[in-house]
């Protein structure tokens, strides 16, 4: 992996894919993971499975918004330039729309259609987010202990206020020692 690789063809492809995905990222960019896998790994072959999973794992481990896994996918496919065009692609449409809509909606909160949209999307968003967790969860056949770890973490996040950084650290240590 050379950070300063020059590959405009890959950059254009990445930019196009993320630009197209941006406006579908209701509920967070993480809900797009299954679709990104289909486009970038299965169809276009820009990334292999290992890099795809590492990008998500590393972004979860590092501080900052989770959307930065998109920069890492760009990095693994097209170096520094790939990281930058991927972030611009995923952010530009949604940012423009979010700013425009939040200004528009703030003057029309009493509209029934606005309220119906806000409430109506909630169950769909929850289902999509769950599918993302499912996609990232370790397979029970090959990694039952890792799946048990996921289940315990889910319970801790749901029921306690334990700091998320400790959970990430515990995962790194257990994984590094080969225990999960």
């Amino acid at each position, binding site marked *: 992996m050379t950070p300063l690789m020059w590959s405009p063809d890959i950059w254009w492809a990445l930019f196009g894919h993320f630009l197209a995905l941006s406006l579908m990222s209701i509920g967070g960019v993480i809900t797009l993971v*299954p679709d990104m896998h289909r486009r970038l790994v299965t169809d276009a072959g820009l990334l292999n499975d290992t890099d795809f999973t590492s990008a998500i794992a590393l972004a979860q481990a590092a501080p900052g*918004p989770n959307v930065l896994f998109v920069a890492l996918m760009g990095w693994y496919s097209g170096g520094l330039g790939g990281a930058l065009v991927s972030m611009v692609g995923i952010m530009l449409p949604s940012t423009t729309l979010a700013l425009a809509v939040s200004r528009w909606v703030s003057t029309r909160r009493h509209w029934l259609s606005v309220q119906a949209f806000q409430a109506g*999307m909630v169950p769909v968003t929850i289902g999509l987010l769950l599918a993302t967790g499912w996609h*990232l969860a370790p397979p029970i056949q090959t990694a039952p202990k890792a799946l048990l770890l996921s289940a315990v973490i889910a319970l*801790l996040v749901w029921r306690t206020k334990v700091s998320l950084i400790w959970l990430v650290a515990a995962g790194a240590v257990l994984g590094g020692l080969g225990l999960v």
Partner: protein
Amino acid sequence: MPDASAVQGEQGKGGDEAGLDRPHSLWHLFVAFSALAMQGFGGVIAVAQRELCERRRWLTPQDFVELLSGAQVLPGPNVCNLSLMIGDRFFGWRGALVALAGMIAAPMALMLTLAWLLGEAANVGHAQDVIRHALGGIAAVAAGQIIGTVLKLAAPVKDHVLGWPACVALAALAFSMMAWLHWPLVWVLLGLGSLTCVGTYVLLRRRAVGKGSTA
């Protein structure tokens, strides 16, 4: 924002009572968002709430929840949309861009450096295996964190206008379409999403009419 002055006016009035503060410059805004982004491991929402409402006192918890629900409905990363809206509230579109830049710039620089170092370390024999296994452990934690967050987010559904059994069924349907049928996301959003929105609209309208006739 057409009603920015009105919102800020209300904020200002409420601010005196609640002792609310505000960022005094774009630079102040940038530093604050960089600082909270760099503390947010495995999700920024919790840190954002603590920093913005409790430590810096720029927003009341009520403001925060309202902005967040708007940010979650719109496409785009939730915390990035939230940054945009908060920046916009204090300094208009320039504030929106500065808050967003603060949220992204420093963590992105750190993460790419980390990815580069890990790539170099990968060439050093045994280190590659340890790092790969550690990342595997972190991925398992990441999956658990997302599922735990889903369980938290599901709690308010019990008061949903569609009723909680319908919500659970709809969420299960969306999940199945993505996880088992592997449908493209846009079909799920347009198909199932528009159905639930129309259904919610009909119920809200009926409720509004019902209230109107009893009044």
